[in-house]
């Protein structure tokens, strides 16, 4: 029996042999390779799969497939949650131990080494004539980056603790 025609497509008897299960292993591999890219032969093959030819699996597949899909979804969700949890625990540990401030201060001092030298202001004679505009007073500038960082972190902490307090009270009210 010829499995393939000269044009490279599967013969009718080849497809019938596949459906009847009379092909050897090499024949089945060749047929699978061909059906994986040839739309015409796939159409011809699926057209044969009707009625009594279609066998039902010994066990219903919907349950194991559903379980596998659920496991995949859980793995994704749990993976993300685990990463977020580890990051939160690490941040809290560092915060409570006071290491976060130290790290910030150390990084800040090392950053200061890269800050360029201050440029000397031009002499008064070189400046253009003053207009009537007067600059508003600027807030006092922090000289150290560490001070700025510490101020930002403590502000954030205050905001978080005050928000927690508010939510606690609201919950209490709800109760």
């Amino acid at each position, binding site marked *: 029996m010829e499995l393939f025609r000269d044009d490279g497509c599967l013969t009718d008897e080849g497809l019938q042999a596949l459906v009847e299960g009379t092909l050897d*292993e090499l024949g089945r591999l060749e047929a699978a390779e061909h059906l994986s890219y040839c739309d015409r032969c796939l159409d011809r093959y*699926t057209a044969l799969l009707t009625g009594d030819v279609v*066998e039902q699996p010994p066990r219903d597949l919907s349950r194991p497939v559903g379980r596998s899909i659920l496991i995949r979804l859980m793995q994704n969700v749990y993976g993300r949650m685990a990463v977020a949890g580890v990051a939160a625990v690490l941040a809290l540990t560092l915060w409570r131990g006071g290491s976060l401030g130290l790290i910030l201060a150390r990084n800040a001092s090392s950053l200061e080494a890269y800050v360029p030298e201050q440029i000397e202001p031009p002499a008064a004679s070189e400046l253009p004539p003053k207009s009537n505009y007067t600059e508003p007073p600027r807030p006092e500038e922090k000289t150290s980056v560490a001070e700025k960082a510490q101020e930002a972190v403590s502000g954030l902490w205050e905001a978080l603790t005050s928000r927690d307090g508010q939510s606690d009270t609201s919950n209490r009210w709800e109760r």
Partner: protein
Amino acid sequence: MVRTYQGLVYTVCYQLVQDNDTAQDLAQDTFLAAWRAIDRCPAGYEKQWLARIAVNKAKDHLRSGWVRKMSTPGDEVMALAGAPPDEGPEAKALAGIGMDELEKKILNLREPYRTPCRLCLLEGYTPAEAARICRRPEKTLNAQLWRAKKMLRQEIEQERRSEDGTLSR
């Protein structure tokens, strides 16, 4: 979708691998792969789309089993991408016969091996060019070439053995 098409998918897998448990595993893999790529399913062609995924799963299974069964020492060299073409037992066996004899043997091969071998071994096309001409995926064409060389080598060795047997008598 699983309830509607599980019979079809299982049947495709079973007809190709001829084993109940493997067919069931492959059918499950098919539905998982379909779930991951559900947005690429063409509307109205769910049957063909699922059948193609099932065929691909079965093909990968059969191919790995076939490669394991047929692998012989020296195959690793052939399997490497960019490996020199004139190495390996198949290439040596083919180099040991005359061009006319090789052409005759290639043209006597059955499809789906004859056309890729003619293009690559006789007409000098690269596998990528031959794949375009035959309208087959390059990976499939390479697998067919690999098996065709094995067939040719077996045929040549069988002929040699029978010739040696005749001479020794």
